[in-house]
């Protein structure tokens, strides 16, 4: 991305930017696609309340901006996934979104939501269901900013996803998984790459055909051990 690291590392007090709704699951009914029946909060997701979220004991990144799901054909071959990912959202040319931003995809206006996950993984089914959004034949976008205390070379992005997914680190594609699959820790691993000191932008596109959908992500060091010294933040508005 062209955004300067300095801009990215300045932290955002997410709570201050959060829209009128005070809880992740309490979205205005008018914005929901499904029946306007209130649904319980996503059980595994919370609203961020701290400036930064350290990676957990196992190194997983637990703070993300998630875009409400985009309807796609739900095909999971490499060609179909790449077509879906590139159709509406040229990721490397898109400015870093902020919590509460909206994006028009076709005739549908979709919103970005900041979440912390209570688990190692981010449960996209929980996310979409709580918003009364579809969970089948959908494309999710996820973005976060990972802050490294120093330059780290020879590291790898390690992800798992249900189902297919494509991942970028600082604008360069890092890894991808295709076909129907479960989210297994370290299922897809990038080649060796370098994390800059300070902010590093991670983007992901996850395509689900049906059923459960989630993802997990962390960085591994040169010895394949999880890096635990990173923090995840969200972009400053």
């Amino acid at each position, binding site marked *: 991305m062209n955004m300067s690291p300095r801009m990215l590392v300045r932290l955002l007090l997410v709570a201050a930017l959060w829209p009128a709704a005070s809880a992740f699951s309490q979205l205005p009914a008018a914005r929901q696609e499904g029946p306007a029946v209130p649904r319980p909060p996503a059980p595994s997701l919370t609203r961020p309340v701290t400036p930064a979220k350290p990676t957990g004991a196992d190194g997983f990144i637990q703070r993300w901006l998630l875009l409400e799901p985009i309807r796609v054909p739900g095909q999971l*071959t490499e060609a179909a996934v790449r077509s879906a990912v590139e159709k509406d959202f040229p990721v490397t040319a898109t400015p870093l979104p902020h919590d509460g931003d909206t994006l028009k995809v076709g005739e549908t206006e979709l919103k970005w939501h900041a979440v912390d996950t209570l688990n190692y993984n981010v449960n996209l089914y929980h996310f979409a269901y709580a918003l009364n959004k579809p969970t089948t034949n959908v494309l999710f976008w996820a973005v976060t900013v990972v802050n490294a205390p120093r330059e780290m070379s020879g590291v790898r992005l*390690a992800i798992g996803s249900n189902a297919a997914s494509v991942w970028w680190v600082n604008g360069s594609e890092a890894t991808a998984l295709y076909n129907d699959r479960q989210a*297994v820790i370290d*299922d*897809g*691993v990038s*080649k*060796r790459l370098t994390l800059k000191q300070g902010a590093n932008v991670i983007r992901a596109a996850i395509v689900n055909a049906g059923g459960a959908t989630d993802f997990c992500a962390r960085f591994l060091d040169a010895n*394949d051990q999880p890096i635990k010294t990173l923090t995840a933040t969200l972009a400053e508005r």
Partner: protein
Amino acid sequence: MTQHLASRIFVAVAAACALAAPLVALDGQPGLHDPSTVIAENGKYYVYATGNGLPMSISDDGWTWRRAGGVMQAVPGGKPGADVIARGGNNSWAPDVIRVADKYFLYYAAPGTQPKAAVGLLVGKTLDPNSPDYKWEDGGPVVWSDGVEDSNAIDPGVFRDPTNGTLWLTYGSYFGYIRLVELNPKTGKRLYPDRKPVNVAINSEASIMIARDGWYYLLVTHGSCCAGANSSYNIRMGRAKKVTGPFLDNMGIDMLQGGGKLFLGSGDRYVGPGHFGLLDLGDGVQKFSCHYEADLDRGGISVLDIRPLLWRDGWPVAGENFKTGTYEIESARTGTALEMAVQGVPVGGARGRGGRGGPPPAPGAAPPPPPAPIPAQEASQVSSNWPSGAAAVRLSPYMLQAQQKWAITALADAGGYPGSPFFRITIAGTDRALAATPDGELAVLPAFTGAPEQLWRIDQLADGTYRVMPKAVPNSKEQLALSAVGSSMPTLARFTPDSDRQRWNLRKP
């Protein structure tokens, strides 16, 4: 015993003359008899054998061997010392060699009219005949047999106990017992010359010991030697909790009563394996050397071989050097298979679940014919959409698809490593070659060029899995191995013996 002596001399001469034999096992000039343990120094491999002057063979890589004269050329007087000859005789047979601190101890049999024989000692600083320090000093006789006692002091085997550094020598042949004495690690001679040797086995020869996980293993050779394809030589073993025995086989029979679990018998195109030697390459990679009395692909001469040493249920197992063929390459870490990163096509083409056997036939109607077999998927059936240039490599569940089947082919004239030539690894039915890349990763290149990053070393590990290493990684001096990072990513990384990361199952697809 006279016949035994004549047979050994004949075999040694025949082996020396058969240098241009077809190359099947080791390459170059592997003909020899009664080899010592193969030993490495400064990247070269050395082995010594029965024959006039103790013939020596050298290899730069452990695969291609050349004859390099005899040890006795570097001994003052050019023959065993006078005391050795007096205790035994003027012959020089079946040596063994070990490095202890900054010295090499080379033990050899000097038989006279058997069972009168002696084991002599030579002491040297280097194995390299081109070194200015190269020479062997006579260390005199170490053990001997007087021709009457229940011992024939030939076939020495030297063993360093890894648990405490003590040094031991076993020796003997079919006349009487295999015997054990302790050696002085500083001199190579007996530590307690007045103590009676310990009898540890009978009815065998070519003894040597190894140790692992609290057990001592005594490996010996049973059967008859020196008769070409009519030799019944076979390697057997027992184990003990103490270095002095008792060594029991897998059925609890003491080797002093003729026990011995089979380690290696005749097989493939080789008759009469004998004279086990351990070649520990480090990182948990172990090989063993032996000779075959007859290599049928080399006219039945006696040859050296080096093979993987495996372990199972507390016993050593003779592995086989990897053979050319088509394989699935499955990660022991993840259970996923190495594949060229292209969209796979289901074997037989895409189809639905099917009728689960279909409806039952109408009453009285003939049952429908069984479904036709689906042929194996070949690259030519599905490769039209494959990229023409380089492709990425990944790991995926094995689905019997063409991009997951690898032709692994032994290469002639490309060098090798102990026991084996290098291999090329290509997508079966194509020339698309697996290669190491300058960033320490992997790619499938459009064609095999023979470059070092496309030559692969495949070592079988103790548990039967394989370590797969490129001969070289561009821009790197590190020796790296094929490694699984997560479920779907193969890479190259330094080999870690205690992990499944770099262990691979090579299966017939």
